């Protein structure tokens, strides 16, 4: 059974954009990962932007989910950029010792798209 909550995935230029607005739990996270990969396949998107500006706690669980998404997307030739880390979250992450292995970050959506464009033109 699918849960009722869903994280919407939008198309913007030739990238996909997903804003995480609700706290992820295990099941939702798995569905989100699956939905993203299906969307990448369907749309042939070149980039993936995940907006976490609505998230007030980034713990090791969500970090693991994000790192996994970036890895999966990368296997499909898609570059992931995480945008919208609030200042207090960046500070906490560094002290926490969490590693965003292999994940690109950008301040906001605009900068995220810029990063994808630069990457594409390389």
């Amino acid at each position, binding site marked *: 059974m699918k849960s009722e909550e869903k994280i919407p995935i939008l198309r913007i230029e030739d990238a996909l954009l997903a804003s995480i607005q609700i706290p992820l739990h295990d099941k939702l996270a798995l569905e989100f990962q699956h939905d993203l990969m299906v969307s990448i396949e369907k749309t042939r998107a070149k980039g993936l932007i995940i907006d976490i500006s609505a998230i*007030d706690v980034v713990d090791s669980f969500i970090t693991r989910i994000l790192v996994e998404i970036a890895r999966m997307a990368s296997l499909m030739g898609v570059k992931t950029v995480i945008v919208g880390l609030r200042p207090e979250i960046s500070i906490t992450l560094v002290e926490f010792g969490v590693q965003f292995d292999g994940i690109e970050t950008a301040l906001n959506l605009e900068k995220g798209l810029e990063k994808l464009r630069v990457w594409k033109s390389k």
Partner: protein
Amino acid sequence: MEIKVACEYDIVIARSAAKTEAKKLGFTIVDQTRIATAISELARNIVVHGSDGIVRIEEIEKGDRKGLEIWAIDRGPGIENIELALKDGWTSGGGLGIGLGGAKRLMDEFEIQSEVGKGTKVRVVKWMRN
């Protein structure tokens, strides 16, 4: 304040409660985030590794300093080797293995007691800067 922690949704309830209390006490947004993140880790440990747990949040005072004391207590299987459990990157399965170490770094005080077969108690404190 005491919050029952039995399923994933309770993790969000526990960390939101901790954040709200921290805000009420006057902690900065960065400290609120440190506290909420640490509690998220401890509550998740109850759900994933322990069972039948609670998170207790209390305002404390020492001299003219105010602080927030949080207990995460469960009656799960306990931890055999605490030193190992605290090591960054060590997990008995599924996680990143940085929850306990991370919670320790984010808080000012960190104590853990665990007995195999009985359960685990973690106490953390954050002090307000005067």
